[in-house]
């Protein structure tokens, strides 16, 4: 259970997000949407305690402010945009790094049987087993994304925070990633909070949407209840609904 109440946070003493409040019950996911610089990423960072914040921030009734880094890492994983890497680690090693919290408990920081098992399982699920020894600086964008997805999954988090991880990907991989995460979020009490630019893609993940503008929450709820023409116009300064309907008509033609 994630609970936010009057949360504000920012950089260099200036708040970027103000007074954010919402609850997320177990198994529930959320998409955060809004125009540029509305504070989506800042909010995500605040939840993961990557930046300090004010206000109530609780996970399972425990205040995140008071949690130690390792306790947070056991439950929350952040997946951000990584487009290119310049250092030659292997796919396998990169994914194994996600097991850090679990590995470092042992004396010489050796991976255990369980660690190996989980890494291999996640590699299978994202279909990377065939290239596990390849160096990540030679992978394509889509492959790299899957590496970091696996890296996030092996952390065995309950909550994954996604920060526009699909921006640079082609359509196939965008859709694939979101679909996978939706499946993931639907079992074992997992939750995903994803920041998206693309509303359509967001709705692939979850119908639970939250719109932000200028650091404030403008609306939160089911897409059916929330989205109206005026509402989106207020948020984006452009009639999204009309644009989408027009696009739909055009696409409908192609399917005939």
């Amino acid at each position: 259970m994630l609970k936010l109440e009057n949360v504000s946070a920012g950089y260099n003493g200036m708040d970027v997000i103000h007074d954010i409040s919402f609850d997320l019950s177990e198994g529930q996911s959320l998409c955060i949407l809004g125009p540029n610089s509305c504070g989506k990423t800042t909010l995500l960072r605040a939840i993961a305690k990557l930046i300090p914040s004010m206000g109530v921030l609780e996970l399972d009734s425990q205040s995140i402010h008071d949690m130690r880094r390792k306790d947070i890492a056991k439950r929350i994983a952040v997946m951000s945009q990584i487009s290119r890497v310049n250092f030659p680690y292997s796919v396998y090693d990169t994914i194994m790094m996600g097991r850090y919290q679990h590995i470092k408990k042992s004396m010489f920081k050796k991976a255990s049987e369980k660690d190996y098992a989980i890494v291999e399982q996640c590699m299978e699920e994202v279909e990377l087993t065939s290239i596990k020894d390849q160096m990540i600086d030679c992978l394509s964008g889509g492959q790299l994304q899957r590496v970091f997805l696996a890296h996030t999954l092996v952390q065995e988090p309950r909550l994954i925070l996604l920060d526009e991880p699909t921006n640079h990907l082609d359509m196939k991989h965008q859709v694939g990633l979101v679909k996978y995460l939706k499946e993931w979020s639907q079992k074992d009490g997992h939750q995903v909070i994803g920041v998206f630019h693309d509303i359509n893609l967001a709705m692939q993940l979850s119908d639970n949407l939250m719109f932000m503008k200028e650091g404030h929450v403008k609306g939160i709820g089911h897409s059916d209840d929330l989205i109206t023409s005026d509402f989106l116009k207020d948020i984006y300064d452009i009639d999204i609904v009309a644009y989408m309907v027009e696009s739909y008509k055009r696409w409908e033609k192609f399917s005939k």
Partner: protein
Amino acid sequence: MKKQKVKIWITVLLCMTVLIVATGLGSVSIETSNILGIFAHKLLGIDLPNNLSSNIVSIFWTIRLPRTIAAFLVGSALAVTGTVMQSVLRNPLASSYTLGVSSGASLGVALMVIFGMTIPFLGRFSLPMVGFVFGLGTVLLAISMAMQLDKSLENQTIILIGMVLSLFVSSLLTILIVLSKEHMEQIIFWQMGSFSAIKWSHVFVLLSIIFPGILFLMYFTQELDIMTFGEEQAISVGIDMRRMKIVLISASALLTGTAVAFVGIIGFIDLIAPHVVRKIYGASHRIVVPMSALFGGAFMTIADLVSRTIISPSELPIGAVTTLIGAPFFAYVYFNRRSVTKKNA
């Protein structure tokens, strides 16, 4: 992986060869068989070969061997700290020197020299001790100042504060030197770096700090790997970045401070060793850190050999030698491999 193993073995063998060659060459050449004979004599009590004068044994055992070992130790310490600092601060130019170890140690040494003090129970270790304390102290001061200014201890803050503090301390040193010119030569000589005064007692101290120090840093190779992907990633995976930075930077400063305290300021190795080693071995710190130690050690040993033989009976300042040999070597390795990878791309 097999390729890596081969490379590692080659490196180990090269290091041993370098050590043997370095102890064999100098103002007098000592053959390998004689070297082994001397070891047998000293360690096992076997009689020396007849034609070996005791004077030569003195040279080898009391002057050259400790000196060569010290060079290897200092070289590895500098290379390892260079690697760690570059990974922690994610800056290819980062090193303990830039954070103030060198200027701090110089200031400490200058104060000792000018005021002619010795610490009672430390005797000849007074100078290294003071150098070490001042060097480490400057870095710790830089870190604490950075912590005050920036709660999350961002790399940029650390580097900037380190540089500013380092320059400030340097200027204090300059003023001191100007006010007491008669000591200028001695202080500057010390700064230039030299292994000429090393004896066994120094080697034991160096060994007892550097060896565990390097092992300590190797304990964090996993964290170092993860940190390469960025601070946010590292934090998200559960690394307490703030604590990790403080620990790693302090440990590095400890190693560098020790090295500087005994032999002065020898640069360049901490800068290029990481790059060269990464080019050859890849990115995994589990391999890069120990290989840096070997590479740095071997390199420094060779540099010391050159510095004490090339204008015998005088010596070249070793800092100059490391840069003179290092720069072209670095260029060769770095740009050669670069074009290789470009071809493969």
